[in-house]
């Protein structure tokens, strides 16, 4: 929190601040803390050995591996697309720019289940490309390719959305300076642009990763739910729960929750670094404020 915000907050009466804090923290505790705790309580309901057995189950382990694999394939694509799109939008003016921005936001607006269904309509047996794919023995839906494709679709806005405002604020002066001093295009990118955006980029990657690992709806439609093969962790949780295997379901859910906690910690660190960076930037760019 910057010095200015702190000063403004102290202007409010004490009871109001206390009330706001109680409401805010109470809400968080009730709607985030308690469910998170419940996941772990249920997971350990039958004791530690049952928890260990549930997690060492081959199908659970392959669900974890598949979830990680999908995220690892999807994220590099997202980085390339996100940086390219943000670059184009922030540093150039061109026709159809607002259209591109709208398109980037599309995955936020469309329900994940609909995304899955759209991919079925395209690549399913009764879909547009289905017969051609079947004739050439290419498996897309109910296999890894479609699961990667829908995850890519769902997660593609995160990095671009994070970078666009950052790059717009930074402008293109530094890049122009680098070029005029004789830097090549890649040299400029790796020496000037990337260091400027690295924390924003990392933040975007963390968000995209959290979404990729947690995605349920779209992946569920195109997965086929083959045990040990096309079941991601969120799908596996649902199936175990439906089979009256509560310990298994919550043990798998606890892995997801742990991933979320790690993400949260990483996000906090990156946010802190980012604020540092922007403060440094604004402090050097703007004249000092008068109190």
């Amino acid at each position: 929190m910057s010095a200015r915000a702190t000063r403004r907050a102290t202007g409010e009466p004490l009871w109001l601040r206390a009330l706001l804090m109680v409401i805010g923290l109470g809400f968080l505790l009730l709607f985030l803390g308690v469910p998170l705790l419940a996941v772990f309580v249920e997971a350990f309901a039958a004791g530690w050995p049952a928890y260990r057995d549930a997690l060492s189950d081959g199908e659970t382990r392959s669900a974890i591996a598949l979830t990680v694999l999908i995220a690892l394939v999807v994220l590099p694509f997202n980085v390339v697309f996100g940086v390219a799109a943000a670059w184009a939008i922030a540093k150039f003016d061109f026709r159809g720019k607002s259209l591109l921005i709208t398109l980037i936001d599309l995955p936020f607006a469309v329900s994940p289940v609909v995304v899955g269904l759209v991919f079925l309509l395209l690549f399913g047996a009764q879909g547009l490309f289905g017969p051609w794919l079947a004739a050439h023995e290419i498996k897309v839906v109910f296999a890894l390719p479609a699961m990667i494709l829908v995850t890519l679709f769902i997660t593609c806005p995160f990095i671009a959305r994070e970078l666009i405002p950052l790059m717009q604020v930074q402008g293109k002066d530094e890049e122009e300076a680098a070029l005029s001093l004789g830097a090549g295009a890649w040299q400029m990118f790796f020496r000037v642009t990337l260091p400027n955006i690295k924390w924003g980029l990392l933040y975007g990657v963390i968000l995209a990763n959290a979404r990729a690992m947690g995605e349920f709806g779209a992946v569920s439609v195109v997965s086929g739910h083959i045990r040990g093969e096309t079941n991601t962790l969120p799908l596996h949780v649902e199936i175990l729960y439906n089979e009256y295997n509560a310990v298994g379901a919550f043990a798998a859910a606890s892995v997801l929750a742990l991933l979320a906690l790690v993400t949260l910690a990483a996000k906090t660190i990156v946010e802190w670094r980012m604020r540092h960076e922007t403060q440094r930037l604004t402090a050097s760019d703007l004249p000092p404020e008068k109190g």
Partner: protein
Amino acid sequence: MPMLQKFILFVAGVAAAWFAVGAQADGNGLLNVSYDVARDFYKDYNPLFQKHWQATAGQKVEIRQSHAGSSKQVRAVADGLDADVVTMNQASDVDFLAEKGLVARDYARRFPNNASPYTSTMVLIVRKGNPKALKDWNDLIKPGVQVILPHPKNTGNGRYSYLAAWGYALRQPGGNERSAQEFVGRLLKNAPLFAAGGRDATTTFMQRRIGDVLLSFESEAELIAREFGKGEFEIVYPSLSILTEFPVAIVDKVVDKKGTRKLAQAYLDYLWSPAGQENAAENYLRPRDAALLKKYASQFPPIRTFTVDEVFGGWSKAFPTHFKDGGTFDQLYQLK
């Protein structure tokens, strides 16, 4: 770029781990696409069949399982999920595949017993001590009794519950279609909510403690007991209920393409073998084998049942009459 190389190696490593842990796709194997609570049955059945096939055909065979909601599963098969066999909990789901030309239209006659290797029935699950003294379907329409059931329009359990009550009312003295519809209407009025599925209905009843009676498959009562404890509820067998069948079928289009017809046929045939039937009984599903049913009599009390074919002329008639848009359920629900 050592970083990039390391990353690619890492991705490759994870991919290898995934393939190693997961099943080795294709090759000499079957994919069995099934409904969600069938997992325990096939988890035990698949090793039995694998042993049998090794002994008779001298081949190792790999069987992959897919489990999810029944109707969702057949949709996936129609959209290209390469199921060699489907093992469902409702004929209407297999009918859907027959309509799409993936399964033979006469699939029900290609195996004995309507292609259903085992059966179950709808029972009433009440709270410990049966505080409201619920004994039969006609107790469920009394004022003040709350009935928990999954949505009759779009879940298997819900439809079977609905038809069970309908058939019961129809078979009462002086019963006819109108009195049956009225009876079911009164029962639905006693439902405070419709659960999204069998599992949700159970959670509503057992964990959230809503309702006086839960309508469920006899086979699922055992699963409920496993999670919530046997002493937590009682099973009440009504005087008359519906026989629920679990049809199996070969997906012709897939086995012909993959060349797995013989294997698929053997896999499903073996469900009627003594070992397969005993496995059903051990998983609380009523075996077709009369001798085995007797052996497990304590587990399966005798109950008078009717089939969907006998009372409703089959699922192909029952489904549009009762559950399509504008069917009897919609009519009743608008009254509610």
